[in-house]
């Protein structure tokens, strides 16, 4: 199980964003590089990092930090917010 910021760090590194980028800004709408090609690689990266497999119906809803973190929490790959330090 990994910490919540691991997802933020991964998205920031993957999309080459400033390290200070807020979680709310991590959305497909706000990030120009988050196109369909990047999405394909991002899914692989998330599955490798968090050691999970996304179901097909989950993939189409992964459009932001919030979407991904919700999905990862459901799979037990991220702590719930109240567990975070």
């Amino acid at each position: 199980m990994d910490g919540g910021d691991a997802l933020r760090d991964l998205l920031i590194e993957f999309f080459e964003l400033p390290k200070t980028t807020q979680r709310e800004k991590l959305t497909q709408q706000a990030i120009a590089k988050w196109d369909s090609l990047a999405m394909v690689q991002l899914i692989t990266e998330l599955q490798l990092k968090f050691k999970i497999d996304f179901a097909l119906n989950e993939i189409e809803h992964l459009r932001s930090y919030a979407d991904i973190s919700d999905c990862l929490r459901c799979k037990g790959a991220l702590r719930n917010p109240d567990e975070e330090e």
Partner: protein
Amino acid sequence: MTIESDWRLRHLPDSVQAAAVGAVSRPSWLAVRQALAAFDACSTEMQGPPCVIHMLSTFNVASIESALRFGLRTVPCRPELVIAPLDTLEQQIFDERSPLYERPGIATVVFWRAEELLADFFWPLSRSEIGQGQKRIDEVCQRIRDLAEAYLNRGSAALFLSTVALPVACGSGITGLKVPGNLNHAISRINATIFELNATDSRLRVLDLNWWAAREGFCHYDTQMDFLARQPFTLASAMSLGLFLARNLRPLLLPRRKVLVVDLDDTLWGGIVGEDGIQQLKLGHDFPGNVFLRLQREILELKNQGVLLVLVSKNDENEAKEAMAQMPSMLLRWEHFACHKINFNHKYINVREAAEEIGLSLDSFALLDDSDYEREQMRAFNPEVLIINDRSDALHMLTSLLQSDGFDAHYISAEDRSRHREYELRAARTARPVEGGIEEFLSTLKLRAKVEPVGRDNIERVVQLLGKTNQFNVTTRRHQIDEVKRIISQSGSIHLTLRLTDRFGDQGIVGVLLAVAGSEDASLLVDSLLVSCRALGRGVEDVLWAEFINRAIDSGAQRVRATYIPTPKNGLVAGLFDRLGLTPITRAGNGTEYILNPLKRIAWPAWITVQ
């Protein structure tokens, strides 16, 4: 897939090697990106030459572009991948204004797979025209032939056609196998068509994706990615595909290793002849002798491909010779080796001496030796030598030799195949004592030269010589076939090849001179002048030059300009143009420019008969 011991990365800084190894051993897209950034940060010399590669595919390769580019970095080169829109083969190949022809690179690669090429073959019993399978296969084969023909009529770069891999996402097909024109039958027919095409034109090459997929196994396929993005590979297999692509393209950019140095004891046979005696040596059809026998078989095949064999062993020569002659299972014989160094000197010194005798530089050499010590010593003192194996186990040596890409070549010429004989004869030529001077000796060889223009029959050999001649090469311009065609089609150009024969046999084409009309009136500019190292010291360059100057005069030229561009390997020709009577105009670090004005007819060397 391994990259840890890849000799092509050894010249790179440790941080780059670590990034590359990390990207392969623990693949992630971020690791790939970091490795590519590490390559980018190296000097351009370390990165290798820039090259454009066009890619056409029936499936999505854009999303694995960085993995493919990573693989190509190991050539080494600076690849630019131009990926055509998905599944637009006809649109790209039949359009004369397509980027394939407007901006040709070193190669065009066509990837296709059964899912798109043979979609209706997946469900043969659901087809409306059951029983028409053979006809449909014929149609697909014809489509492939038409695409290849259209490309070859328009394009100049090499065309790599991938074979079709057996699909993973399909049923077992047991029932379908009874249906005429079933999927597996269709794939084998199509792959056969691709192999048949491969033999028809030297620009065509097969990228054997079917072989690659078989080696990777079913786990190379990513069902999720295929349905999500029409991208069928896992990340790990995309990385492997990049390295496989690099292996296929590498022979376009780098010459192959020409010499294999092999040890005797525990390499060509099991045991040590000097200690165990001939009777105890292991070689034959039973284990473990069968491993050594197979090793010998593979080495003999390399010899037949034109790789020179050199025997280097710390042994008593008579004892070694006797063992080779007496062992009934021995495939490799004494005379299969172009050079023998059986003594107790350091092997790295023996290899240096062999390089000098054969007339090839150490970076043409590879070594197969069971001794960790000898390999390490070779690595330390002759770092240019490619070490094939990194362990002493015979089975490891065999698999290392089978997997080595050091001897890869797309095209093996008749000259390559007879190279061993040529070097054997070369030894005979140099060994023969002759009284009198060198010209007298050369006269005894009964040298005959045939000078012909570059044309359809010899252009492949010309490109091969341009690509691999290092020592006697005044400009070292590595022209590909399209550039040579452009030069020979230019008005006023003079382009010559020289075939050399002596009393020992035909050495094939050993010299090339390319010259184009200069920018000023009535001048010719020497683009390339080279002589194969197998024919050095015979006066080949004098014949080529005399023939060139005489033809230049006949064509109305009044002066000739030439350049010597120094490289670490062509010091041999630093003074060539001075010797030929040209006047240096400018000397700079990047070369010396010469002029010959006026032109006067030149006689051929007395010891060569010119046809």
